[in-house]
């Protein structure tokens, strides 16, 4: 606690487990932004669940003292959705990397966007699989040749997270930079307060396998348009497509009915067993 007041401090949400991320990793900034956001929202640790998949960034639940689940590769959103269905009172934050979320978990991403359950999805995008020592991910540029698996590049068009989230039906879409934890913290607060599926793509440099990303701090800038955020999907799509992927800010916010537990068909176990009787 802050000795000058009764205010909860961000570090009150950190666990005793020290991150093993490489020094200089952008994921430190995301961890700090998440804890700052939780402190701003004055949420008790037991009111929040942080769910992840596999990868460097997916280690994040261990570094906080909220409920955590370090799940299996690409299935973090499915776990988060299940938990939200079982415990609608919890604030669900799902976090992970671009490989986990857009490749292995790509299908879950699409359907989480369109289902619009009340949860926040934070993807730490470094355009590489870091934990497995540097392979091209869905967001890697087609001409990146540093991996032995793709020595002449992937020749594949990079996945466009914001545009795809919009097309799939996400109701809150934003892009941020891990080197600005205070700005990102505000975005996480807005995302967690948004009723529905909120998606934040965080540009989070990997200093080990993509050292050139250290330059991102000189490239990222806020969207230079007053029109954003917008609730007009056509306008949001226009700005997503025109942008080089390095502009930050809240892009799209839409009020749409949120998935509720009461939407589910309740059925008793006995009735299910009855259906399977021969």
């Amino acid at each position: 606690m802050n000795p000058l007041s009764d205010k909860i401090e961000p570090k009150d949400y950190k666990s005793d487990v020290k991150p093993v991320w490489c020094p200089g990793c952008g994921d430190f900034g995301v961890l700090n932004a998440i804890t700052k956001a939780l402190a701003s929202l004055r949420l008790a640790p037991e009111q929040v669940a942080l769910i992840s998949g596999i990868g460097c960034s997916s280690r994040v639940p261990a570094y906080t003292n909220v409920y955590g689940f370090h799940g299996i590769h690409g299935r973090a959103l499915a776990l988060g959705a299940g938990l939200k269905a079982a415990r609608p009172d919890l604030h669900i934050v799902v976090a992970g990397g671009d490989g986990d979320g857009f490749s292995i978990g790509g299908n879950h991403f699409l359907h989480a966007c369109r289902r619009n359950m009340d949860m926040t999805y934070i993807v730490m995008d470094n355009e590489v699989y870091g934990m497995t020592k540097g392979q091209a991910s869905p967001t890697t540029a087609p001409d990146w040749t540093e991996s032995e698996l793709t020595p002449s590049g992937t020749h594949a068009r990079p996945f466009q997270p914001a545009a795809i989230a919009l097309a799939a039906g996400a109701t809150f879409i934003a892009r941020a930079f891990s080197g600005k934890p205070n700005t990102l913290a505000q975005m996480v607060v807005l995302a967690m307060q948004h009723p529905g599926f909120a998606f934040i793509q965080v540009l989070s440099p990997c200093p080990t396998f993509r050292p050139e990303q250290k330059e991102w701090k000189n490239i990222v800038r806020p969207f230079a348009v007053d029109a954003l955020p917008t609730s007009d999907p056509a306008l949001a799509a226009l700005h997503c497509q025109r942008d080089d992927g390095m502009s930050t800010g809240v892009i799209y916010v839409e009020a749409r009915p949120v998935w509720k537990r009461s939407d589910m068909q309740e059925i008793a176990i006995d009735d299910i067993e009855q259906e399977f009787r021969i």
Partner: protein
Amino acid sequence: MTNPQEIATKAEFLAHAFALEQESVDRYEELADAMDTHNNLEVAGLFRKMAEFGRKHAVEVERLAAGSDLPTLEPWDFKWADDEGPETGDYADIDYMMTPVQALQFALANEKRSRDFYGLVASHSPNQTVRELAGEFTQEEAEHVTLLERWIARHDSDTTIADDLDPPNIVD
């Protein structure tokens, strides 16, 4: 945000000063832990020393704030010159093989940002008391800058990062 000149009350100023030191302590401790994990013990020790200095300064600010009701500010509501606190540094300047001189240069950049932040408040705040207090803080940060420059001068000026004989980014 980005308007230190608009800090207009002593309580608001001290809230900024305390946050500046607390964020500095938190960041240096985080960096020290990361360097410990990656076996750069000399730089880890240096960052821990910087955290200790920050802790002492935070206590000084607490003493000045005794009896005052400081405002609670959200991270994005602080009137720093940039979006982030002056002494949190930049993750892009950190490397697991960084030398003590590079760590001192990182700290020097932090101290210069603090000095400049307090300098802006000292010269532009609409409140005379705040201007005077900020002037004292500017002077103190300027002394830190001078001290760090002396420490850096005493070290070998070679800032080349040594080769890692077992680098993490080589595929086995």
